[in-house]
């Protein structure tokens, strides 16, 4: 075992989540904080997200990803007790909060932390996970890795592209490719609606006359060394391709934007409970996981669409970790949330009794004019869609403790066109 250094708080991952959590903990008076990042650069996914649209909620101005990251890097510098280690990978975390890291400069180092915040973010679902038949030629990229190649390394993938998946990253990449002179033939979406923001559909597709095919998928990839074409087919309501209606699109690049999964190898190692609905750790109103003293925030807990929400929630986790270290979070009573009608996921999953808790809620399918019920509280929702987070601040008086849980549901809505 390497020699062990004692610190108050270890934060794993220096994306927006880890940076906000570390800064908030420092501001709350935590003295020895170590922020660990496996990359050379701070900011997590942000440096490659060169488009704007970040910061409207948090900074009340519109920033690009690198600018948003820059603001937090400046904050980090204000706290001398907060040490940042880049190119340092966390390899093991134990339930009693020993954090083992490895780096080229220091080799193996072990920290004994009073508290740990997990902020490892998420990664893209690999192609294997979606199983398209056909050859395995060059020219197939996941949207996030292509974003890195184009925006950081200045690489151009080809001349013509088809994008599978209409989430925000797929839409953003459709525009980015078009601006660089790559012809985007189509964006295909398996679902009958897009998961992307309206704004991105308008400004990334409609502005450039890129067709969006809903309820369509790629059924086969052709090409010897390089992608030459893909076969596309509409799907029926059970998502089975209707082969007779298939058609070919020639392209030399296929971009897969097929979802993100929280990066939870370390969480599993610690033994924290994961929520199948989010893929991330189950957390309470303080963003504490099911293992005491281990907190989780940002995309590792829930894949957020807005980095602003990541910052807000992570600052809350940072302050909570500070309170925990001071012994201010005692054993507490909590109630589980329960997903009712048209609810896919709710974070936090455990509501600490008496605690006002901002909730991030996701619907299963799009609807108009539904009423969101949370315990005894309710609000009207003009539109809900799986692509947009529903916000609700749960107040202590919304909960009836006698129920034993807090039910969240959307009622009376109408499926929209």
């Amino acid at each position: 075992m390497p020699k062990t250094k004692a610190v108050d708080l270890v934060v794993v991952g220096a994306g927006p989540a880890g940076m906000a959590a570390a800064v908030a903990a420092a501001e709350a008076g935590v003295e020895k904080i170590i922020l660990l990042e496996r990359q050379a650069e701070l900011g997590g996914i942000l440096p490659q997200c060169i488009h704007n649209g970040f910061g409207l909620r948090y900074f009340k101005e519109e920033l690009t990803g690198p600018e948003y990251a820059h603001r937090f890097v400046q904050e980090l510098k204000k706290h001398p007790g907060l040490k940042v280690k880049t190119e340092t990978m966390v390899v093991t975390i134990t339930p009693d909060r020993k954090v083992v890291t490895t780096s080229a400069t220091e080799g193996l180092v072990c920290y004994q932390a009073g508290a740990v915040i997990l902020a490892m973010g998420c990664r893209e679902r690999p192609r294997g996970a979606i199983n398209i038949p056909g050859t395995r030629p060059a020219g197939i990229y996941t949207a996030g890795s292509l974003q890195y190649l184009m925006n950081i390394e200045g690489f151009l993938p080809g001349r013509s592209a088809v994008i599978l998946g209409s989430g925000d990253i797929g839409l953003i990449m459709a525009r980015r490719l078009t601006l660089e002179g790559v012809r985007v033939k189509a964006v295909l979406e398996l679902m009958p609606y897009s998961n992307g923001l309206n704004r991105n559909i308008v400004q990334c597709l409609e502005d450039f006359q890129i067709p969006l095919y809903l309820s369509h998928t790629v059924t086969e990839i052709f090409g010897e060394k390089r992608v030459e074409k893909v076969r596309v087919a509409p799907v029926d309501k059970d998502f089975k391709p209707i082969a007779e209606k298939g058609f070919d699109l020639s392209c030399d690049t296929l971009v897969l934007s097929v979802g993100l999964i929280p990066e939870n190898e370390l969480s599993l190692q610690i033994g924290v409970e994961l929520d199948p609905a989010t893929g991330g750790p189950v957390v309470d109103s303080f963003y504490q996981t099911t293992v005491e003293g281990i907190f989780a925030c940002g995309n590792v807990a829930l894949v957020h669409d807005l980095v602003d929400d990541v910052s807000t929630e992570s600052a809350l986790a940072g302050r909570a970790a500070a309170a925990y270290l001071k012994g201010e979070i005692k054993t507490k009573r909590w109630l589980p949330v329960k997903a009712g009608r048209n609810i896919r996921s709710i974070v936090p999953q455990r509501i600490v009794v008496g605690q006002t808790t901002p909730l991030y809620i996701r619907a299963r399918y799009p609807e108009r004019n539904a009423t969101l019920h949370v315990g005894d509280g309710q609000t009207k929702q003009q539109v809900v869609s799986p692509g947009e987070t529903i916000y609700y601040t749960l107040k202590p008086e919304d909960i009836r403790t006698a129920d034993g849980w807090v039910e969240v549901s959307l009622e009376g809505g109408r499926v929209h066109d």
Partner: protein
Amino acid sequence: MTELTCIVCPVGCRLKVEQGKEGLKIIGNGCRRGVAYARDEMTAPKRMLTAVVQVAGSERMLPVKTETAIPKAKIYAAMEEIKAITVSPPVMIGQVIKENLAESGVPLVATGTIAGEGCFKPLEKSLGSE
């Protein structure tokens, strides 16, 4: 008649816009903000443009943006100008990379920092280590 999707709020109203005798006639908007949106889109649509430019002596690109939105019609001309740019380090975030991009009156500014010798490092190396 033109159809637009209002992007001002998540409702995403489908707007139908017609050129009438007394100006634009807009239907389908859920609220007043939709009218202003449709009017802007029909008369002078503008967009922010973000991209990357080459850095002399570096394998990393520098991210850039137009300082404010530029006319939508100038987007491609702006991209052509951006593709021709190579900057020399150091460059500070917020620095003007090119004035009056594509005759839009709007400058192109850096959204990242390159601290000397062509390496893109957003200054984190100057942060303390134990």
